[in-house]
């Protein structure tokens, strides 16, 4: 009998499982997280040791430029360092994910990758604009906090379409961002922990769980 050959409960479960597995972006590589983390740590190092001269340059005073000349230059240096880090990290993410896709024989540019990119970019774009507003309003102390919070929201949003580690990394970044809002003078430290250390830790976890 036909009714004996099907098990509706198991069938529905299998359908759900395959739909989930096939709609997630599984080419994301943990190595891109590690690479982004290293870039961020190097960037934070450059910012601290070179731009701020190991803390000899008082961040806040300089930022607001009491002498009126050094402030804008310093801000421009810090902004270029962070943009460079962002660019390198993004390139790394594409490179390592493309490599993983090739290795595992998965297609790289699929519906899932388009979906995850859009969900990642919406909060990230909003955050970028908000940070520009902060800069224009000369409200520099909350920049690190805003970066971490908006980046965390992006990851939580994109995490629905890939490995769950991304979701938890996002939550961690949001938490760090809120803390950075309280400790505004340690902005660079929180930035280094969030974008550097956490990327490396979560990237390594992802790599060992899914790519070995």
């Amino acid at each position: 009998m036909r009714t004996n050959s099907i098990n509706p409960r198991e069938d529905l479960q299998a359908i759900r499982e395959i739909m989930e597995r096939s709609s997630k972006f599984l080419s994301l590589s943990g190595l891109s997280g590690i690479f982004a983390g290293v870039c961020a740590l190097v960037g934070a190092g450059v910012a601290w040791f070179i731009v701020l001269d190991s803390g000899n340059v008082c961040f806040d005073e300089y930022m607001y430029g009491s002498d009126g000349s050094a402030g804008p230059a310093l801000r421009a240096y810090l902004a270029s360092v962070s943009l460079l880090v962002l660019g390198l990290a993004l390139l790394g993410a594409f490179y390592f994910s493309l490599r993983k896709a090739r290795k595992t024989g998965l297609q790289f540019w699929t519906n899932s990758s388009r979906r995850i990119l859009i969900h990642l970019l919406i909060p990230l774009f909003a955050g970028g604009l908000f940070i520009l507003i902060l800069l224009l309003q000369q409200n520099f102390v909350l920049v690190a906090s805003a970066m971490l919070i908006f980046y965390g929201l992006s990851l939580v949003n994109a995490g629905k379409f890939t490995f769950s580690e991304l979701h938890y990394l996002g939550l961690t970044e949001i938490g760090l961002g809120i803390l950075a809002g309280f400790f505004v003078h340690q902005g660079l430290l929180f930035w280094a922990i969030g974008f550097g250390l956490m990327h490396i830790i979560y990237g390594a976890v992802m790599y060992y769980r899914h790519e070995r």
Partner: protein
Amino acid sequence: MKNPISNLQKVFESRIRLGIMSALMVNETLDFNALKELLALTDGNLASHLKALEQQEIVEVSKQFVGRKPSTTYKATDSGRNLFRQHLAALEKLINNQ
């Protein structure tokens, strides 16, 4: 009351065809290798089930070249999607009636 079993589609009785169709419901298109990896099947096994789905016009096939390698992609047809939805509804009804 109408017998819910009458809406079950014979073509989806096979777990493999059910799996192929589940994947094609949430992805616009999938290529042969993606399906193969997703469902952990051999080439021959997957090809024969795809052929059956193609013959019943549940999936449509398009072939193109990616670089020098041929690539075959599959897509669920509208009628295939409808059949699958009917099948799902029938499965749910069966569970609720138990």
